[in-house]
């Protein structure tokens, strides 16, 4: 067991724990936007940890796992951004505790240029 192996197992462990917490967050949060918050952040770090951890455990796979990790780190925020925008456009309002905390209301139809 070398240092790399220990580091790899530690990263995979942290990764799967965050994957679980992300899924739990998606289950527990009250509306779409909060679900996206929990889901995107926790599953991104979870997937990065798991994939790079396997890359360290199996050094000859490292470059390909690195490419998968970079792809996930770039694509996950983009898809969550698209989902948040789409949800707002079909009329799902975010839950807020006070009334005037939705700065996006009223401007969401302004940018129809594309």
């Amino acid at each position, binding site marked *: 067991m070398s240092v790399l192996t220990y580091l790899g197992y530690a990263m995979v462990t942290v990764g799967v724990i965050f994957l679980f917490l992300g*899924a739990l967050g*998606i*289950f527990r949060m009250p509306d779409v936007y909060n679900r996206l918050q929990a889901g995107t952040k926790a599953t991104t770090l*979870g*997937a990065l940890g798991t994939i790079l951890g396997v890359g360290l455990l199996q050094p000859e*796979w490292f470059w390909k*796992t690195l490419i998968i990790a970079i792809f996930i780190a770039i694509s996950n925020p*983009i898809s969550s951004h698209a989902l948040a925008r789409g949800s707002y456009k079909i009329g799902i309002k975010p839950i807020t505790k006070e009334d005037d905390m939705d700065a996006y209301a009223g401007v969401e139809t302004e940018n129809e240029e594309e």
Partner: protein
Amino acid sequence: MTIFYLIMIALAIIFAAARGLLGPTASDRIVALDSLTTITTAGLVLLAFFFQRYIYVDVSLVYGVLSFVGVLTLARYMEGGL
């Protein structure tokens, strides 16, 4: 250790799938689907390590790319821009 990893991933899939089944609106279901695909991508890489099959890493890469395109398409469709 292997058992622990598999249990965590199974629980994650169960919770996300439960939200996908319960989700009151369509976008809740798509959010659940989005995180399910991320979990599956990570899970495939982990399985590749357990079984020592390099080909599963390629499967995981292609799966990640296709699921990203799929979720983007669903989001654009929901928005009405498709």
